[in-house]
């Protein structure tokens, strides 16, 4: 029993090592829309093209202010 558990542990270590480089693809993030909307384009009034909801416009305006 101990023999099998030890080998299972080794297999988990091996799997972790093999997946480590592939897992590095998850270390990525793209800046959200809020930052894009808070640029000069939004100040010029193009926010009405993005969404029709008045609530979202208010949120973005609050962020800008």
């Amino acid at each position: 029993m101990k023999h099998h558990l030890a080998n299972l542990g080794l297999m988990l270590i091996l799997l972790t090592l093999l997946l480590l480089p592939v897992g590095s693809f998850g270390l990525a993030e793209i800046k959200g829309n809020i930052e894009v909307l808070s640029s000069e384009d939004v100040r010029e009034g193009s926010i009405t093209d993005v969404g029709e909801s008045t609530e979202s416009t208010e949120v973005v305006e609050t962020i800008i202010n």
Partner: protein
Amino acid sequence: MFSRILVKLVDEAIVPAIILLVVRVVAVVVVGRYFGMAIEIGATGFVYPDDASFLLVNSYSTLAMVCVIAVGLFYVLLKSKFFHNTHIHPSVTARLFTMRLSSVIQTSFDIYSQGVVWLSYSFLLMFASGLMLYFGLIYNWIFYVSLVLSVVSTYLLIIDIEKEMHVENGDVVSESAEVVLTWEEEGID
């Protein structure tokens, strides 16, 4: 207690894992700087300014990883072809010993365990790039390069193992033939 093959595979997988991880990180930084992108490091990793930047950097950093795996596989195949202890040429052996490079000569266990590890990385990267291609996170030709590398290196490694085992000549069967030892009594009249 521990399986000898598993211990060997874990041992052989450590260095490639570190190399690939370092190459990925360095490639992201280098590609980002080369194309003048403002890539930041946040709590969840690299923060890209937009989708196009991510696509570009992700593609080229994956290509860098594919290149490293190709070099690793090429090195293993080279050792398997020329520095395998089962069929290394005597003159090459003598030359390597003269140059104090006898450690280059390796056994089948060493070479094929390294081959299995690099091949595993190649296939994992191929599947990862295929998945990223499906979601539009990578250029399609990167996936095709990874696919070709995996297929070609698998084929070459299989051919090498076949030659090593003499499968093509059917010698495997003859090698496993039974040998019966007989006990002859002597000195009995």
